[in-house]
């Protein structure tokens, strides 16, 4: 696996945050079907998973089903967790976020074309530019802080507060299309700044 973003493997390089660093790691014990570890995993991460699911799934019953599927996937995938590559929080969060997004996309009605195959998201090869950036959460924090104030505000409302674009539009009085466009442009800019920062850091290191 490259040293950069490893989203394809649902592992990456976020700061470990508050995940337990005791040894062996929780997920390692989960991978051995240690029931105590699995219950700890539920206690530790269920709030995170529930938050990520409820952000996108309004139906309570569907959300509950998804949470169960996500934890089953976590237990099945736990053996792939590598503490050297990222935190347990990120590992779990990536699985949950991806599963929820996959679910919402499958709910979308595709006009006049065939239904999406389950693996449609994996249809083509990765962008070659992926390897050119190291994903460091500290750098990301700095990059976001350097974005225009209005973009930062939208990022805060969307990512931190979990508001939908429609809710942001109502709150700010901005047209929905503008909110959508600004969030997208902000993400594009963040990526560009992150690449630039990485290049600069590499030059200094070299």
């Amino acid at each position, binding site marked *: 696996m490259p040293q950069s973003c490893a989203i394809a493997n649902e592992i990456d390089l976020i700061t470990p945050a508050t995940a337990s660093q005791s040894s062996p790691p929780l997920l390692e014990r989960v991978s051995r079907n240690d029931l105590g570890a699995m219950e700890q995993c539920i206690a530790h991460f*269920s709030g995170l998973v529930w938050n990520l699911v409820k*952000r996108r799934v309004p139906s309570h019953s569907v959300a509950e089903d998804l*949470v169960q599927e996500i934890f089953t996937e976590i237990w099945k995938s736990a053996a792939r967790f590598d503490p050297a590559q990222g935190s347990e929080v990120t590992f779990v969060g990536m699985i949950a*976020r991806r599963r929820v997004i996959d679910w*919402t996309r499958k709910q979308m009605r*595709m006009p006049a074309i065939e239904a999406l195959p389950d693996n449609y998201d994996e249809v*083509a090869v990765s962008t070659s530019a992926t390897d050119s950036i190291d994903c460091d959460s500290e750098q*990301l924090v700095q990059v976001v802080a350097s974005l225009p104030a209005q973009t930062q505000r939208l990022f805060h409302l969307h990512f931190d507060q979990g508001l939908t674009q429609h809710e942001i539009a109502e709150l700010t009085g901005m047209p929905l299309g503008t909110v959508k466009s600004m969030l997208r442009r902000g993400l594009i800019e963040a*990526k560009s700044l992150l690449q630039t920062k990485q290049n600069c850091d590499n030059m200094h290191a070299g």
Partner: protein
Amino acid sequence: MNSESSPISIEELQAGHALADLDSQELAAWRDLAQSSGIARDEQMEWIAAQLEIEAAWQAPETIPGALVETLKEKAREYAQPPKSAPVEKTNSLSSSRAWWGWAVAACLAILLVAQSLTKPKSPSSRVPIELSRTLFLQKTPDVIHLPFAGTSGAYASTAGEVQWSDQKQQGYLVLDNLPANDPTREQYQLWIVDPQRDEIPVDGGVFDVVSPTAETVVIEIHAKLRIQRPQAFVITVEQPGGVVRSKQKIVAGIAKARP
């Protein structure tokens, strides 16, 4: 889509994909792009969006329902200790015939129960939970909209009722009179929520059956599969059992439209 002629729109598509905010047309365009150009999702953008979202969710976890935690623990127990396969025993003809009779009796009972549930009107007590939850919903939700439901024609001409919906809670109910009973083995009712602000394609609001006599009022909980932003109409269609991904609207039973 030509990736060389419109690089910005491709970037925006990728950003929208990373944010998971593509509507159905954009998602179709993204898919076409992926298939024709060999470009997959932009992992850097996905990483950025995911990190920001996960970090925020981790800092402010939501309280998960206690019953769901118990279900998860039960699933964990099952997962950690999968049921051992029963040892293969030599069975004589008597025990195997007993087993066969056991299954046969169980199957007959199951068929009887299903038949009863389809033919017998539901007792008032069986409707208490949904009536109670609807009453609480109406009492405690300030933004509920009430839209009159009108049947179309033929068997549905006398169908009437209303939709009660809250954008804030993403919750709602159909209260319907004179909606004919359906045979769930042949067809089911399916609710669609028209929300042009979200997407031009209606959102699936769930399938349901009416097993009561037609004159009885039925209350159906709405299960919107996606977040609704500003519903303009609610439409009931008749579809194959299990519902459909996209309705051809061959049979429309009723419509409730938002007031202009």
